[in-house]
C-alpha cells in the first residue's frame, strides 16, 4: 500500500513539474494554428466563390473575429471539454479521428521499440565483452551507418528488396490485406482484435504487414542504443565492483547480467527519452511510406489539405504522448536505480 501511495505521489509530482512545459505547449500550438498560412474560414466555406458575407459569418462562427486572448480562452475551454474542432478532410471531430487512428500508431511504435531493445541490448553487451572483435566491429558499423540512413529511405529500400524483388513481404500498404474483413474493433490493436475474434487469417496478415514498418522504424533508433549500451557496459565491466564480484568466484553469467548490466542500464534508460522522441517523429515518415493508417499519416494528409484543426490536434496528442512516456521512463528509474527514492 505504501509503495502505491508513494508511486502516486511521484506521478503527481512529476506531472506538476511538467505543467509549465505543458502550458508552453498549449500556447505554442495555439499560436501555430493562428499563423498557419491561409484563412480557415475560406476553407470551411461551401464553395470557392463564397461571398464576403458568408466568410464573415463563418469567421464569427469559428470565433476568428474576436481578440486573440479571448480566442485563446475559448480554445482552452474547448480543449478542457475534449473538443479539438472538426476535421475538414473527414468532417468528423478531430478527437474521434485521432482516437480511431492512435492504436495503429502505438502498435507500430511499441513493436519498433521492443525490436530495437531486443537487438541492441544483446549486441551492445556482446560488443562490450569482446572489444575489437568481429561483433564489436559489427556493432560499431551498425551504430554509425544506422543513424545516417534516413527512415524513409530504409523503408523504401526494404520494400524494393522484400516486396518488389523477392515477393516475400505482403503489399506494403496499410495494416491488413485488402481482401480480408477487419475483425471487430475491441482494443484497436489489429493483432489482438483478430485473436479475440479467433480470425487466424486476419491475425497472420496483420502480423506480416507489421514486419517491414517495424524493422524500418527500429533500425533508425538501434544505432544510438547499441552505442550507449556498449559504452556503459564497458565502463561497468571495468569497475571495481565487477572485479570484486569476479574475485569472489561468482559465475560469469551472474557477473555480467547482475553487476554489469544492472549498472549499465541507467544510461540506456536515460537515452530512452530521446529514443521515444525519435520514434514518435520518425513514425510519421514510416507511416507515410507504408500508407499506415495511424495519426502520423493523418497529420501529413491534414498538412497537405490545410486542415488546421487536425494538425493542431495531432501536435497536441504527440506532445501529450511524449510527456506520458517520459513519466513512464522516470518511474522505471526507481526499478533500476536503488538510489532514486520515490519520496
Amino acid at each position, binding site marked *: 500500500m505504501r509503495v502505491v501511495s508513494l508511486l502516486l505521489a511521484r506521478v503527481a509530482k512529476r506531472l506538476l513539474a*511538467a505543467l*509549465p*512545459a*505543458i502550458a*508552453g*505547449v498549449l500556447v*505554442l*500550438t495555439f499560436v*501555430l494554428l493562428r*499563423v*498557419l*498560412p491561409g484563412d480557415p474560414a475560406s476553407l470551411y466555406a461551401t464553395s470557392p466563390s463564397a461571398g464576403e458575407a458568408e466568410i464573415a459569418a463563418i469567421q464569427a462562427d469559428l470565433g476568428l473575429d474576436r481578440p486573440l486572448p479571448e480566442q485563446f480562452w475559448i480554445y482552452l475551454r474547448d480543449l478542457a471539454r475534449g473538443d479539438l474542432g472538426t476535421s475538414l478532410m473527414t468532417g468528423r471531430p478531430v478527437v474521434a479521428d485521432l482516437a480511431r487512428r492512435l492504436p495503429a500508431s502505438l502498435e507500430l511504435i511499441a513493436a519498433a521499440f521492443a525490436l530495437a531493445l531486443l537487438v541492441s541490448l544483446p549486441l551492445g553487451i556482446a560488443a562490450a565483452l569482446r572489444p575489437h572483435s568481429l561483433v564489436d566491429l559489427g556493432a560499431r558499423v551498425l551504430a*554509425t*551507418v544506422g*543513424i*545516417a*540512413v*534516413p*527512415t*524513409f*529511405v530504409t523503408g*523504401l*529500400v526494404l*520494400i*524494393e528488396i522484400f*516486396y*518488389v524483388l523477392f515477393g516475400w513481404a505482403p503489399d506494403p500498404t496499410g495494416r491488413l490485406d485488402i481482401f480480408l474483413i477487419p475483425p471487430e474493433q475491441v482494443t484497436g490493436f489489429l493483432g489482438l482484435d483478430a485473436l479475440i475474434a479467433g480470425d487466424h487469417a486476419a491475425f497472420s496478415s496483420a502480423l506480416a504487414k507489421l514486419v517491414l514498418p517495424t524493422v524500418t522504424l527500429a533500425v533508425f533508433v538501434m544505432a544510438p542504443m547499441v552505442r550507449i549500451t556498449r559504452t556503459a557496459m564497458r565502463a561497468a565491466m571495468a569497475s571495481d565492483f565487477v572485479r570484486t564480484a569476479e574475485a569472489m568466484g561468482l559465475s560469469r553469467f551472474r557477473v555480467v547480467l547482475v553487476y554489469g548490466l544492472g549498472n549499465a542500464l541507467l544510461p540506456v534508460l536515460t537515452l530512452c527519452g530521446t529514443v*521515444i*522522441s*525519435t520514434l*514518435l*517523429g*520518425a513514425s*510519421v*515518415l514510416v507511416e*507515410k*511510406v507504408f500508407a499506415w493508417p495511424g495519426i502520423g499519416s493523418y*497529420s*501529413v494528409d491534414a*498538412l*497537405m489539405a490545410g486542415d488546421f484543426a487536425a*494538425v493542431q490536434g*495531432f*501536435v497536441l496528442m*504527440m*506532445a501529450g504522448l*511524449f*510527456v506520458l512516456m517520459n513519466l513512464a521512463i522516470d518511474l522505471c528509474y526507481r526499478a533500476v536505480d536503488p538510489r532514486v527514492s520515490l519520496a
Partner: protein
Amino acid sequence: MSVRTAIDRRRSWAARFDLAALIGGFAVAALVVVAVAAPWLVPYDPYASNAAQALQPPSLAHWAGTDQIGRDVFSRLLIAARLDLLIAAAAVFASFAIGTFAGALAGYFGGWFDRVTGRLVDVLLAFPLFVLAMALAAALGTGVASLIVATAVVNLPFYVRLARAEVNARRGLGWVEAARLCGRGPLGVVFGALVPNVLPVLMVQASTNLAWAILNAAGLSFVGLGVHPPTAEWGMMVAEGARYLASGHWWLVVCPGGALAAAALAFTLLGDGLGDRLDLRGRDG
C-alpha cells in the same frame, strides 16, 4: 624546437585521428567541393526534360538513370547537394550562434534570464523533435527559408543547454577570475574568455548535428513541407521516385537516398573523430 619534439608531435597527431574520422573529413571536403562546383560538373541540364528518355535505368550516358520526365538524375543529385548542404549549414549555424549566445549568458549570469531560457527550452523539448519541425515548417509556409528556420529552432535547445552547462562549470575557475581582474566587463569575460574555451565542445556537437539537420530537412521535404518542384532536393527526389518504385524503377529512390545517407555518414564520422580527439586532449592535460 628540437627534432625529437617534432617527431613526437607528428606521432601523437596521427594517433589522434583514426581512419574513420579521416574518411569522414575527406568525404565532407569532397561534398563541399561538389556542392560549390556543381553547376560546372553536371553532364546535363538538371532541369531539362526529355520525354523520349524518360525512366531509363543507369547507363554510361546517364550514370544514375533518368526520371519520369527524362531529366538526368545524376545531374540533379549534384545540383541538389548545393541546396541540401546550404539548408543544413545555415540551420546549424543559426542554432549554434543563437544557442551559444543565449546559453553562455544564462550560464554566466543565472537569475531570471537563466530561468526564462530554461523554461523555453523545456517547452521546445516537450515535443518530439520531428513533430515540432513539421508544425513550424507548416506554420511558416513551404520553402527553403522555412526549412532552415524549422530545423534551426528544433536544434536550439541542445546548444543552449550545452553552452550553459559548459560556461557555468567554468565561471569560477582561476583564469576566469584573472580575466575579470584584468578589468574586463562581464560581457568581455563571457565572450572574450569563456566562449572561446567552450567552442571546441560546441563544434563537435555542430558537426554531428549537421548530419541530423540534413536528414531532418530531407524528411520535411519528403512529407511535402519543403521545397517546391522542380527544384532538385534529395528528400523530394526520394518522394517523387517512391511512386515509381513498385514498377521497378529503383534508381529514383536508391540514388538520392544513397546521397543523403553518404552525406549524413560523412558528417557523423567527422563529428565522432573530432569528439574522440577532444577527449584525448582533455586526458593529456
